[in-house]
Structures are given as structure tokens and as C-alpha cells.
């Protein structure tokens, strides 16, 4: 059973990189362009094993998105990894406070990405 990953990022470049890395690792990828879209994809697609989300996005940012997922009984148990550009601690702290399970530092190394997913995925 391959894992289903929902990625939420407004940058097409990052979306494509995530998709390439995850599909290479044999995972299924669902993609959304911002938080609102991410919530829509959650409702309309198969439930992902792990969600990866960016923070800076239009319409609904990563913090809002995580809160919404955590606030929904159906999805609250899905691990969420945050894509952060810097490994600055207070950003990680904010992501953690918002309810993220973990984080990935951009630019990410595909192997690290996959291992982070495996670490949080059931």
C-alpha cells in the first residue's frame, strides 16, 4: 500500500519538486495550492497519510490550514509536516504551536523528505 501524501504549497516549483521526490519514492501525491484548496482536497480526495504544507500562502496560510485540520475530528490524526525555508527556531516553534507534527527545511533533500515522512507516518 503506497502512502498518500497531500502537499500544500503555492509555488509551482516546490509543488513539482515535492511531487517528483514523492513519486520517486513510490508515494501517491495529491496537491493543493493554498490552505483553502488544501481543505477542499482533503474533502474531495482519499484521506492522506501525511500532509506537507508551506507556511506563506495566499488565501489561507499554513498556520490557518493546520489549525483547520486539527480542528476537524475526521482529519486531526493526520501527521502534518511544515515546509520551512529557514531552520530558524522560532519558526519551528510557531509551526509546533500551530499543531504541526514536524518540519522539513527547504530546500529539501529527497531522501530527508522521505525519511521525515516515514518517521511520522503510521
Amino acid at each position, binding site marked *: *500500500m503506497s502512502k498518500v501524501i497531500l502537499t500544500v504549497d503555492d509555488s509551482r516549483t516546490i509543488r513539482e519538486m515535492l511531487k517528483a521526490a514523492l513519486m520517486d519514492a513510490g508515494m501517491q501525491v495529491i496537491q493543493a495550492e493554498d490552505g483553502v484548496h488544501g481543505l477542499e482536497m482533503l474533502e474531495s480526495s482519499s484521506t492522506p497519510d501525511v500532509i506537507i504544507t508551506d507556511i506563506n500562502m495566499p488565501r489561507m496560510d499554513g498556520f490557518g490550514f493546520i489549525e483547520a485540520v486539527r480542528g476537524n*475530528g475526521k482529519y*486531526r490524526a493526520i501527521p502534518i509536516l511544515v515546509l520551512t525555508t529557514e531552520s530558524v527556531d522560532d519558526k519551528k516553534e510557531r509551526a509546533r504551536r500551530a*499543531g504541526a507534527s514536524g518540519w522539513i527545511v527547504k530546500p529539501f533533500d529527497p531522501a530527508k523528505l522521505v525519511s521525515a515522512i516515514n*518517521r511520522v507516518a*503510521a
Partner: protein
Amino acid sequence: MDTMAAIKQTFFQECEEQLAELESGLLTIEREEGDAETINAVFRAVHSIKGGAGAFGLDELVRFAHTFETTLDGMRSGKVETAPQIVRLMLRAADTLADLVRVSRDGGTVDAARVSQIGDELAQAGGAQPAPAAPVFEPIAMSGDQQTDDFGFAPVMISFDDLVGGTQADGGQNGFAISFKPKPELYAKANDAIRLLRELRRMGEAKIRCDFSEIPLLSELDPEGAYLSWHVRLSTSGGDAAVREVFEFVEFDCDLSIEAQGLGGTDASLAVEALLVEAGIKESAPAPAEIPALAPVPRQTSATPPQLAAVAPPTASQGAPAQGAQQPSATIRVDLDRVDRLIDLVGELVINQSMLAQRVMEAGIARLSDVAVGLDDLEHLTREIQDSVMAIRAQPVRPIFQRMSRVVREVADMTGKSVRLITDGENCEVDKTVIERLADPLTHMIRNAVDHGLEKPDDRVKAGKPEQGVVRMTAAHRSGRVVIEVADDGAGINRARVRDIAVRKELIDADAQLSDAEIDDLIFAPGFSTASTISDVSGRGVGMDVVRRSIQALGGRITISSRPGQGTTFTLSLPLTLAVLDGMVVTVAGQTLVVPLTAIVETLQPKAADIHSLGEKARVVAIRGSFIPLIDIGSELGYRDSEADPLQSVAVLVETENQSQSALLVDGIIGQQQVVIKSLETNYGQVFGVAAATILGDGRVAVILDIDAVVAGTGRDHANRKRNAA
């Protein structure tokens, strides 16, 4: 790597979009129309560029974007105010960022001094230290490092390493005693103790003991609470950092102690613990497989136990592979060649349809017969298909308009003028090729407007105008064409000077009688340049004659109007598409010609009383009180020597781009028809008065008239004749 190369291309495309977004956002802020979301969008644009650039190791780009982003972040949080000089700095930084992107894509070099200077200014504005010399991105391996630890721990760790080294010498591995007690927050963030244990087991041999002594009675059990804790003895080849990495995401959500220790069992208390583990609780290495059943206990009653979550996907994801592979987007990318092939085919379809219509007519089939009615439907459909296909190639002029604001800034900087660019109608859509080929002429016109059109600030103040000049660029659809205007509020054309130059360069006779419009038009004459010194800005060997030629090559026209003291306006009129036009099919001296419908005002049968001769050959026709020049197409284009008899002809009243009207004499009108434009230049060469050719329903080739050229040509002839007579 093909994928990476493709993604890199996406990155650069995206950069272009982000840069456009950045610039338009900054311009909005400059106009003081921005709100928090504008600043957010601007920040995101730079942030995105930085994120992508980091992925491709474009360090210089990353560094600059980082400095830029930091200042923008300050603006976002209100630490940096949006003062005009700051916004101007940001705009220059945006230009520099664009340069860096371009260099990253196409190679070449940027002005390093300029980059670092703007970087410093940005950092200063942001109140931050200048960009760090090292790449902003730490090596990826950092994520597992001890960066969150206090430096004070370092010595302790070194001594541990010594210890570890000692045991390794004995042939053993690193040993760790790990105790952790998750807090409810750990579970609330969808982390799970079992996964941490699983990770530890992956590292080596783990003896795991679960302490469930704290589980309360069921009646007191909080379903969201956390009551279990674990003690793990791990022997692994990994180091302390690797163990900590397992807990990286959860270190603040659990009580955690990781102690390195030898495995020799010399420590009595350790030995006791080991005994407890093995004897008392019976938790040895194979046990963790059972532990999972216990681990989630506190969560069993929570909304979605992990087991259920894991069960859900298999059923639902049967159809997922295809879905997962698709990008949830309403757009697709298509190779331009495919679109062009489609357009070609539709062109053929249009020709074929009109041929069919002609055959049906020739066969004498009644107009109301089923065949004829069906043919009418086909015609409608063909036209709709054509419009839809053309719409695929249509794009808004926005990107090119946005590019112009940079041109304005640069020229303003160089000439020491203060200029504001106002744009309007950016959403106007035009054929892609037209847009691409507009960039150079528009750039040149904008440069001219700032460099030559606008006065120096002092002169403006003296003339009672605001110091800041305004260049206005607008696009609008007007009767099947797109009209782009570039207007400045400068001094207007100095006609005396233009005239002097034209005489000196022998473009006109010294005693030529020229109207104001004709003098203005001299600016487009080949070899004309009003700047007495070739400035760095406008004069790059390109004159307005080149601008006019490139616009004409697009089937467009450019005209100028100028009012002394109030400014100059250039008007570009362009076809929406280069592929089809609505035309009036007429006959002249046995030839079939097409007159573009957009130029035609009306058709009429001249009466003898309305025709007046003017001089030797020129004739005018009186229409509703105004006299309009009559142009005999047949003799003008050389189809016949004698002048046509106006009373036996039809007059087609046309209007040219500069709003003047003329009446074209033709022998007869065949009808109105949509024609496919086939370029004459690609297959033959440019012919005076002919814009292009087309294929008619009966298979014959007909030429499409270039109304403006025909009318202007006649006018020039008249002027020449007048001059020669004088």
C-alpha cells in the same frame, strides 16, 4: 536529470510571474493603495523565489532574496514603514532581483557592486545586519544537529564521545538509556509514541519497557490524556545526534532523557534495571511488536484512532493513482506548435466552408432548402470555432505593461526626472505573437516619452506643472482592434525644431507647406532623430521609423498627436489576431479585392452633383456637407490607366487610423466575408497598397487592401504634385 531540468524551467517561469506580482504589488504600495494583503503578496513573491532558488543552489539569488525578504518582513510586521523612499528602494531591489533571476537562467553577469549596494541599503532599511556571507541555507544535514541545544552542553557531549569511543574499542556499540513520557500535546499534533519506538528499533537493538502504572481507573481516564511512558535501552551504531533526531519533532512535547552509557554492564544499577526489564516486565527485544497494541490506549477513544486512519485509505484510494498524479488546476499547458497547427486547420476550414457555399449557390439550390440552411449553420459553427481557437492564443497585455514600469524607472533615474507611469486596460487580450513583438516598439516609445517628451523638473515647475511627469499607457479594444496609447504630459513636439531638422536632413523642401500633423509625422521619417546628442537612453540606433515599421509588420498602425505645452500621444492600433479578418469583397477592373471591414464606414452611389474636381486630377465627393477625397483604386493600384467614372462606380467610405475619411471608388461589391490572411511577404514581397492576400471561396487569390497606405500614398502624391506645380 530530466525532471530537475523541467522543474528548473518551471521555476524560472514562476519567477517571472512572481517578479510581475512583486512589481505590481510595490507599485500599488507606492500609490498608497496597498493593504496588508498587498504587502503579504509582495513578501510571498520574494519568499517563493528564494525557496525555489535554494533548491537549485542559486546562492547569490538566495542571498539577495533573503535580504530583500527580511526587509519586507519588517514592512509586514510594521517595523519598517512604507515611506516613499523605502518603496523606491524596494522597486530597485525588485529590478535587481529580476536581473539576478535572468542571469541565473541565461548566464552572464550582474553588476556585483550594484547588487551588494542595494543589498546593504535593504538591510539598513530593514534595520538588520547585512546579508550573511555564508549561504543562508544551512546544509540539509543540519536538521538533525544540535542547533537547539545550549552551547553549554557541548563539553559534556565531548566527554560522552570519549566514553563511547572506549566501548567501541571493546568491540561493543553505543548504548543509550532513553526514557520518555509523552504529553497530550504530542498526540494532539498527530505524533505517536509507537512511531518513535519504531524509529528507535530501526537504529539497532532496543529493549523497550512500557510503564503503564499511571493509567487511572476508566472512570477517571481522560481520552485525550497521556498516561504511558517508556524506557528504552538501545544499542546502536548511531551516535547521540541520531538518537536525538528521532525525537526532533517531539522534544518539547514529552519528558525526555537520553543518556549514553557503556554496554558492559559494569554499573550495578544498570544491571538491576536490565534484570527488571527482562524478568519483571518481560519486555525484551521482540516485545515491541506487541506494545503497539498498548501504546495507543489513551487514544482509543479519540476521534480517529490511528488504526482506523490507516484502514481508510485502502478502500478510498483505489482510484487515487490517477487522481494523485493530476495537478488540481484549471489550466493545461500546450505546445504552441499544436495551437498554431489548429489555427492553420481552422483557416483551411473557413476557406473550405466558403468554397462549399459557393458551389451550393452555383448549383442553383434554393436559399431556403435544407442544404442551404445547413450550410448557414456550418458557417456559424465555423466562425465560433475560429473565435474559440483564436482565444487560445490571446493573452492579456499585462506582462508587457508591467515591464514598462521598469523602463520608466531606469530612464527616469538616468535623466534625473521624476516620472509616474499610469497604466490602464492591462487585461486587454491580444494575440500572443502581437504581444511578443510589441515589447521592443513599446520600450522605445516609453523611453522616448520620458527622455524627450517630459521636460526637466525645473522646466516643468516654470511651466506651472507638477514636478513629477506622468506617462500614461492604456490599452482598449476598439472595433475589432486593440488600441494602445502612450501619452506624456510634457511640452509637446517642438514643431519649429522638427521642421528645421527635417529640412537640414533634406527630408522636406525648405519651402514645403506642411500642416501640424504632417510635421509631427516627420518624426517617423527614416533617418530622423530629434535628440541633438545621442543620449544613452533613447538613441540606440533605433528611430521612430523602426518603431513604425515593426508596428506595420504586425498589421498595425501608429499615429502621433501633440499639443504644445500639454504633451504628446502615440496611438498604436493593432489587429487582435494575425490570422483572419472580416472583409468586404469588391471588384475593380476585373480584379477581386478585399477591404477590411473595420475601416469601412459606409458605401454609397455618388451622384453627379456631388462630385467636384479639385485641381488637375484630384476629385472630392460631397457627403452630408463635408468634402471627402475620392480615390480611384483601379488607377491608384495600376489596374487601369483611365480614371473610373464615379457615376458607374460604388464609393466605399473608409476611415483611416488618424480619423480622416476617404471614398474609394470600386466597380462593384460582391459581399461581406470572413477571410483568412495569408502573408504576401513570406511568399512574395511587400507591395504598395496591399496588406496581405487571401483565398476566396472559388479558389482564387484576392489581395487585401492596406487602406492607410493607399490613402496616405494618394495624399503624398497630391502633396508632391502641389510642390512640383509650385
